[in-house]
């Protein structure tokens, strides 16, 4: 089914398979030895964009060399540029030691060895590389008379500092979260895993955006096959822009036509760290605080980082509560419809009479009633997110109080329905991951339709289809429903319930078969008195 | 009405199944598939328009009657 749809979707793309790229002839060309010529070329290629700064100055004794800095304003750290200029224009001139000048064969070498007081320095001789560098915040150094130059690591733009996570909050646990800067993000992980086996590979994806994408894994835990698979899938991406990790997620996931996320994302460094330590692979994308984690399993979306920071028994109870809420979100309205239209015998007599009294005079069948209310709720939820924060408050008040109350008063909706919709909504917020919650909310409507047509039979048919679908999913070769199916007794310790930390001796089996034991006997011993 | 419904369903099935098989040049598969689909369609249409079809199990019962009686006779 999925394949068919995919091929239909692809058909249109075939016609213009060639993704437009900057195939300006000049970009491939080498530098000229004439500085002015080069600068002119740079300017023309960028369409004289005003944020391209060119700073010309002279260095060497008597200022014998004409030098230029070319950089993008706003992407560079001005402090570094100023310091550099100071060294090159003032300090170097003071330097009377001719030896150093003579020791170097060229001015380039001289500058590299004595002039440029900065860490990253790389030689460059063509426009393409130079543009890559300039546009990612480096500064190009060109000298008149030379057809090569250097680009200097002067990156330093304004970014958001490390702040508190907004989408996955915890009561107990670290409060830092990723930022939009790739380097900061990788540093947040490095800080947590001080191990040389934590490897990082970076590549640029996106013909136009040249977005840095990094994959991070722990060499001796992560499965090589999976790492290679991630590399391959990233390699195959041929797209002009990567704006967020969501792009990557959609381009590399196993199955597109499923409401369920098969790639986990998080903005919490501790979650990603824990994932890495289980043998998963993190994918960082520059420009977004959301880091991807593969392979992702179904149960992972029910686990909150806090589970591991609070007591095992309490964490287990809360996890069970989450699964319960999953079923409430999925089935509650459907069960209401199914039971009230097909299986009234299941309702206790008193309740049935009171339901009958409430529904008396309501013009819609309960399916339509439920549909109206559920869609209203989804509209309210979406409105609450999109509105400016101040208005969002008002929206929820209007939604909850006015619509709910008034609809019941007006006899359009029964009181029970409002309770059911509210229950469903609240239960859906219990799920710790947003993308799972939203897919469950979507499926809920399918179950409502099934319940309205076939009653509980429809619901169970839906459930079987759901289980079949979930069982057929894979995330980077790992069955999505692991460790429930295929069953693994060891890994049950951290699925539905969480065993105490000392009990979690092995890493998840299907994620990686390397180095499965993560700890040795740590059972706390009571001191004997 | 029923017959039309059956034909629509069959046509849909055929549309979705035949093209991939034809593409892969699985000619034998295609033949068997079409044959089975034809049987199914004909039988369903017969059922839909109310042709009385003898129950093959009745024949089976008759043929196996002596054996059945022998086995059950042992235990009666």
């Amino acid at each position, binding site marked *: 089914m999925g394949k068919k749809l995919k091929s239909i979707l692809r058909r249109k793309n075939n016609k213009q398979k060639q993704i437009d790229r900057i195939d300006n002839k000049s970009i491939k060309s080498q530098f000229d030895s004439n500085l002015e010529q080069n600068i002119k070329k740079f300017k023309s290629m960028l369409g004289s964009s005003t944020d391209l700064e060119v700073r010309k100055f002279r260095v060497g004794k008597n200022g014998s060399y004409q030098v230029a800095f070319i950089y993008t304003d706003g992407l560079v750290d001005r402090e570094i540029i100023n310091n550099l200029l100071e060294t090159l224009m003032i300090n170097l001139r003071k330097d009377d030691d001719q030896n150093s000048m003579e020791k170097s064969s060229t001015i380039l070498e001289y500058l590299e060895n004595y002039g440029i007081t900065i860490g990253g320095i790389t030689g460059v001789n063509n426009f393409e590389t130079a543009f890559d560098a300039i546009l990612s915040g480096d500064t190009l150094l060109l000298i008149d008379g030379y057809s090569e130059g250097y680009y200097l690591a002067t990156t330093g733009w304004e970014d958001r500092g490390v702040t508190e996570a907004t989408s996955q909050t915890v009561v107990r646990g670290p409060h830092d979260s990723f930022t939009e800067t790739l380097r900061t993000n990788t540093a947040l992980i490095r800080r947590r895993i001080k191990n040389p086996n934590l490897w990082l590979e970076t590549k640029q994806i996106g013909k136009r955006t040249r977005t840095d994408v990094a994959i991070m894994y722990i060499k001796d835990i992560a499965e090589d096959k999976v790492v290679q698979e991630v590399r391959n899938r990233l390699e195959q991406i041929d797209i002009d822009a990567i704006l967020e990790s969501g792009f990557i997620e959609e381009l590399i996931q196993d199955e597109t036509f499923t409401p369920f996320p098969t790639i986990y994302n998080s903005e919490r460094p501790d979650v990603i760290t824990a994932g890495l330590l289980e043998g998963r692979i993190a994918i960082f994308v520059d420009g977004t605080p959301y880091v991807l984690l593969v392979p992702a399993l179904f149960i992972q979306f029910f686990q909150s980082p806090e589970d591991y920071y609070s007591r095992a028994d309490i964490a287990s109870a809360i996890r069970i509560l989450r699964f319960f809420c999953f079923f409430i979100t999925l089935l509650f309205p459907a069960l209401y419809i199914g039971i009230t239209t097909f299986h009234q015998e299941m309702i206790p007599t008193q309740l049935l009479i009171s339901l009958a009294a409430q529904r008396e005079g309501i013009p819609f069948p309960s399916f339509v009633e439920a549909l109206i209310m559920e869609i209203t709720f989804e509209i309210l939820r979406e409105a609450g997110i999109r509105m400016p924060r101040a208005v969002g408050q008002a929206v929820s008040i209007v939604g909850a109080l006015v619509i709910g109350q008034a609809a019941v008063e007006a006899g359009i909706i029964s009181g029970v329905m409002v309770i059911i919709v509210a229950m469903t909504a609240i239960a859906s917020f219990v799920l710790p991951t947003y993308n799972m919650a939203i897919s469950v909310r979507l499926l809920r409507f399918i179950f409502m339709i099934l319940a309205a047509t076939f009653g509980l039979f429809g619901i169970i048919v839906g459930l*079987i289809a759901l*289980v079949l679908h979930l069982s057929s999913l894979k995330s980077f070769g790992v069955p999505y429903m692991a460790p429930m199916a295929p069953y693994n007794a060891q890994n049950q310790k951290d699925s539905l319930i969480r065993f105490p930390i000392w009990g979690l001796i092995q890493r998840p089996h299907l994620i990686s078969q390397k180095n499965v034991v993560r700890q040795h006997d740590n059972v706390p011993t009571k001191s004997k008195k | 009405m029923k017959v039309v419904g059956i034909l629509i369903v069959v046509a849909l*099935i055929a549309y979705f199944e035949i093209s991939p098989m034809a593409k892969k040049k699985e000619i034998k598969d295609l033949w068997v598939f079409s044959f*089975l689909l034809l049987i199914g369609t004909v039988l369903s249409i017969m059922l839909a328009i109310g042709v009385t079809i003898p129950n093959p199990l009745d024949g089976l019962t008759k043929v196996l009657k002596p054996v059945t009686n022998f*086995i059950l006779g042992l235990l009666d």
Partner: protein
Amino acid sequence: MLEQSKISNRQLTILIVQFIIGSKILFVPASLAADSEQDVWLSGLIAIVVGVFVAWFYAHLALQFKNQGILQYSEIVLGKWIGKLVNIVLCIYFLIIAAFLVRDIADFMTIQIIPGTPILAIMIVFMILTIIGVRLGLEVLSRAAEIFNPWVIFLLLLLLVSVSTQIEWKNMFPVFDHQMKHIMKSSLTFITFPYLEMIIFLQIIPYVNKPSRVKRNMIVGTVLGGGMLVVVTLFCILILGVDSTTRHIYPTYALAKKITIGEFISRIEVIVAGVWFLTIFIKLSLCLYFIAASIVQLFALKTYKPLTFPIGIILIFLAIILVPNMAYLTNFDATTWIPIAIIVGFILPFIIYIVHRLKIAASGKKT
């Protein structure tokens, strides 16, 4: 081989258990109690013992051949044409079983759960579900079975625990009141359906991860599945009484109607009906898979997936035409089905086994 899937030994056990429970659980109390009344547990035990033997034999036979199912080695052992004949017989055998299953679930639904809904609608919905399952392959099916497993157990336990307060032990007595013949007769229907239908696993065992443990899995599955059926039957007798058990078409469902948890939660039998729904789904999927596999083998096709829809249509047709009413089905199961099951489910594989052994012996002498 039909596909590149592997199933674990645990999954095999679960498949066996659900295959045995599937559909039979609806009828077992009535059919078991028909002749042996309150001595059903004895009939059940005898049936399980025989079932264990059958399971052992199947496993033994399956392990003679590596990476081949009965559909393949029947042609090798008996020669191409006789082998194909055997495959046709097996195909028809499971066509009948699958048609009965479709009919069972649809009848149950229209009689007990959603009367008024056309039986055809239920059959079609259920058939589509099964076809989806089969097309996803054996691996996905067994994973799904693994996920159903805790639910099946939970629902069965819910049923048994919540009615256990209503047990009347006097219904058990007098023990051994019936002639051995009658007890045996009851167990015979239990052996033929579902134990002799387990021949289907001869096609599934080759996919199992560790063949060395297959015998154990087969036997454990047989005992667990049979045990559950016997326990449910016993509960029916203990709570409903012999008379009521035999009079109901679906005694197990009548038993579920007795559920009351506290004063408030009662009448939840529909939920418990989920047990047989899940298990019948698994059983029907396996049957459909087998039918498709046999046709693939018969004509040496490449893939079984396109065949599922036509087979589905034929199955629905058969489900309507083969069973004019419930009484016919019950009667058929208790009479004609017995020799059929014995011939196809036991004599046929036994012949294959003997011929295979003779061939080995013959070739051993030559060399």
